[in-house]
């Protein structure tokens, strides 16, 4: 989840308009953001759309809100000037972190809030969209301290510089081993024996991508006016998109965008590649699935408010938008933009007229039938979690392999139960309260591995407890159940370790073993501190289903 800290003063300055808390909350919901809380000038805003990294800054939020509020429409204005500056990419680096792009933004007007927002924007993009800096990492630097051209190349791990926030030189190796950002992102570089650096023509190290900036060139403060941005990573399209978002944000802070030349061994590109994207859409399809009648003019107007330009030619809708977003894939994406602009709550929900027959699944009908028989016999239905404690599971398990979780949330729930009895015993050991006589059942899922195959089953567990219990108390319930289901069964001797010797059996239907019946061994109960005599049975319903003459 991406949650931003936003200065409301700055936001309202960019909007040229103040909003009440209710208005802000409502409008934010309409751009897929949610106002979590307001604390004075600071608001916490959750951005729910992971494809819109431009919204990770108050400038992006303002840009989108301006459209919704009809303050400013169509493609945002922008201009990119050429510069003579170059960023030279060394051949060697292509195996480690192959891509880098950059830009210069001059005359940016920063203040505390804006600086905070800029840093937050970089962090959120590299975290979520950049997959924790693996694919995208962003650096912003003081342009005035840099001597161009700048070089992006590999350096020996013992190369030293003063990293941001430190007062002495550290080697690249020391940074990875001993500093917080180093440790956090070391996994990106661990397998290499040389690391990427960005260095200027005076041999000053600008940064150690994607780990940390230098303390001098890479440190911005509220007086910094001219900023050099680099975005490095493994995916050229992604880093170009991130760069577009950053330069636009800085432009909205009053800056002027300048391109630089990025010189790769085999090609030369000019970045940022911020430009207008033009797409042709099938207007008939849009109108068909839009659900509301809109004339062409209205469609164009609604798209304008989503910061797009649009026009209609020969049944084609031609849309133009700026490439700070890349989430327009098909007509449905345009339909959503129009509907949002129109206002979801202005739409009239349509009563659906598809006549289909509603029906429970066959499995559910059988489950419900068995539950009904058990309740009619005076049993109380319990419902326990499917995940259970592995040690309790092991007490019961014999020939099944217990399914264990790699990442359990708690040791109480670190495996899947092999029997419903595991969950029942776990419940009773956690809360030792029963009223005599107790007739209890559960029909629920179990799972285990047998012969290297995952088995998912539905089991029925019946438990009887009283001052005095016998296997007959279970047997009579079992007999009634099978009589109601019109299925024949027989019981054969068994030797389950969790049941008392000589007072237990396996239940067979059509020569297939479908479960156990017996008295629970007090040695097992003692281990779980359970103080009730118990008898019961557990049968596989999936097995039983084959024989149920079902016609409900």
């Amino acid at each position, binding site marked *: 989840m991406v949650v931003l800290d936003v200065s409301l003063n700055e936001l309202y300055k960019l909007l040229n308009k103040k909003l009440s808390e209710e208005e802000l909350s409502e409008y934010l919901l309409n751009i897929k953001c949610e106002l979590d809380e307001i604390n004075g000038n600071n608001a916490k805003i959750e951005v*729910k759309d992971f494809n819109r990294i431009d919204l990770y800054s108050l400038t992006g939020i303002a840009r989108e809100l301006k459209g919704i509020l009809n303050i400013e429409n169509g493609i945002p204005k922008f201009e990119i000037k050429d510069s003579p500056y170059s960023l030279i990419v060394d051949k060697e680096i292509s195996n480690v972190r192959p891509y880098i792009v950059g830009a210069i933004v001059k005359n940016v007007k920063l203040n505390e809030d804006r600086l905070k927002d800029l840093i937050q924007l970089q962090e959120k993009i590299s975290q979520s969209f950049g997959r924790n800096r693996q694919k995208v990492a962003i650096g912003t630097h003081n342009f005035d301290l840099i001597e161009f051209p700048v070089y992006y190349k590999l350096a020996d791990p013992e190369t030293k510089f003063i990293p941001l926030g430190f007062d002495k030189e550290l080697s690249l190796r020391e940074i990875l081993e001993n500093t917080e950002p180093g440790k956090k992102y070391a996994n990106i570089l661990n397998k290499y024996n040389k690391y990427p650096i960005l260095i200027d023509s005076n041999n000053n190290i600008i940064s150690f991508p994607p780990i940390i900036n230098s303390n001098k060139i890479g440190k911005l403060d509220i007086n910094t006016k001219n900023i050099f941005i680099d975005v490095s990573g493994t995916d050229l399209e992604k880093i170009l998109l991130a760069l577009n978002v950053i330069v636009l944000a800085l432009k909205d802070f009053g800056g002027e965008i300048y391109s630089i030349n990025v010189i790769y061994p085999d090609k030369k590109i000019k970045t940022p590649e911020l430009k207008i994207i033009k797409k042709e859409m099938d207007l008939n399809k849009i109108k068909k699935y839009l659900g509301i009648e809109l004339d062409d003019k209205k469609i164009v107007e609604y798209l304008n408010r989503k910061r797009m330009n649009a026009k209609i030619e020969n049944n084609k809708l031609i849309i133009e938008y700026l490439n700070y977003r890349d989430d327009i894939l098909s007509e449905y994406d345009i339909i*959503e933009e129009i509907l949002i602009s129109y206002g979801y709550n202005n739409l009239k929900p349509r009563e659906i007229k598809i006549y289909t027959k509603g029906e429970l699944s066959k499995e559910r009908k059988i489950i419900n039938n068995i539950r009904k028989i058990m309740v009619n016999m005076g049993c109380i239905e319990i419902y326990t979690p499917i995940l259970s404690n592995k040690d309790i599971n092991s007490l019961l398990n014999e020939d099944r392999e217990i399914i264990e979780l790699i990442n359990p949330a708690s040791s109480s729930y670190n495996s899947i139960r092999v029997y419903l009895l595991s969950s029942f015993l776990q419940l009773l050991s956690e809360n030792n309260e029963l009223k005599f006589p107790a007739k209890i059942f559960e029909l629920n899922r179990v799972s285990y591995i047998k012969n290297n195959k995952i088995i998912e089953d539905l089991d029925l567990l019946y438990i009887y407890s009283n001052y005095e219990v016998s296997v007959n108390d279970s047997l009579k319930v079992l007999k009634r159940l099978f009589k109601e289901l019109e299925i024949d069964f027989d019981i054969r001797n068994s030797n389950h370790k969790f049941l008392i010797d000589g007072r237990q059996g396996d239940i067979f239907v059509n020569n297939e073993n479908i479960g156990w019946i017996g008295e629970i061994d007090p040695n097992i109960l003692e281990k779980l501190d359970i103080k009730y005599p118990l008898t019961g049975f557990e049968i596989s319903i999936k097995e039983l289903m084959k024989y149920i003459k079902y016609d409900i």
Partner: protein
Amino acid sequence: MISEIEYKVLSILNDNWKNLDEISNELNIEKYKVLRTLGFLKEKGLIELREEKIKKYELTELGKKYLKEGLPERRLLNLLKERKEINLEELNKYFNKDELAFSLGFLRKNGAIKIENGKVIYIKEIETYEKYLENINENTIKLFKGRKGIIEEKEETIYYAKINEKGKEILKNYKPEEYIEKYTKEVIDKKIYKNKKFRPYDIRINIEEENIGRYNPYLEFLDKIREELISMGFKEMDKYNMIISHFWDLDCLFIPQDHPAGDISIMDAFYIKNIQYIEDFPKDLFENVKKTQLKYFKTFDENISKRAMLISHDTAISARTLLNAEKPGKYFLIEKVFRYDTIDAKHFIEFNQLEGIVLDDNLTFLDLLGILKELVVNVVKAKNIKFYPAYFPFTEPSVEVYAEHPKLGWIEVGGAGVFREELLKQFNINYPVLAWGLGVDRLATIYLNINDIRELHTRNIKKLQE
């Protein structure tokens, strides 16, 4: 009029006070029954009843332990007798602090030991007092005065009863053979009721209510929702599994494999230790999904796709249902999903989701809003509904649904959307499919009036029985 048991009790009482124990022993009837009967007899004015409160001393659990194993000073003395001298520090291992402090003091005062340079040294054997614990008398109380937790004082009530003149009168005239006591089959067969009267009961007597068979209230709630969906023409999906592949849970739903967990909650999933891979998908669909993933997200790892996991959202089963769904078709499912979370009153790692899809030509977003409205009325029992734009990787357009609940005001009840074309293409479906999901656990807590989401699962069997 007196009952049989009242007669029995009355008949052994005389002019001298008899206590409850004596009466109970003489009649061989449990004390509580005798006491209850004495109460009735007193109410009827047939006996005199008097209570006497007495103080009584009993050993506590610790006291009983000392009686069996010896007092700590005895154990300490025995140890010293054997070893002659022991470091104080070492003794801390064998005795708790209070026991040790008392025992050292006691033994030293009585000249059995001395303490020098942190060492405890044995001098001679002395008497310790465990034998006085066998029968607690005044002497015992004196000896153990000031030692806490060995003897406890209890108050006991002793009841005495004697018959009075009215009682004697009733007793004289009581003829048990004139009444039918138990209503038996024999009474019917031999027509005994023709000649005798039934002895009247006190039918206001306080007894426990009968046990009842009962559905689990939470499952009953889910059953009710299922009924609503059936009446809306939805068919229950039948392709649910707890353990599914990453492919079904995430990949086939247009979710990039490398998206960081934590961003999208459905990616906070549980993975399985013993079985790494599971191939529960058709090969051609797998190829289609691979193509889509490579086209839009550029990477696709077949091994990640085959990883076995616990289902983290029921949309995975909606996707499975697409494989051979009918058109037009309406399908729903309420089943368990699993997500890694910190367990507290608001979060549990297993919960049920209500999930549905509608397939037909020409469906639009407005039809989806129509279904959502119907659901909110029938399932959430709310009249007002609001819609806001939302983001789900697998739908476009997407919507978040808020309903005005009679008790809670506006609450978020679910999310919905039109399945993305890019996703449907993988299943060779070229018409719209509407998809929605509602959180039913939240509604269940409101319906069942509970504050802790963990209580949807049974935590106390006795509570269900009562």
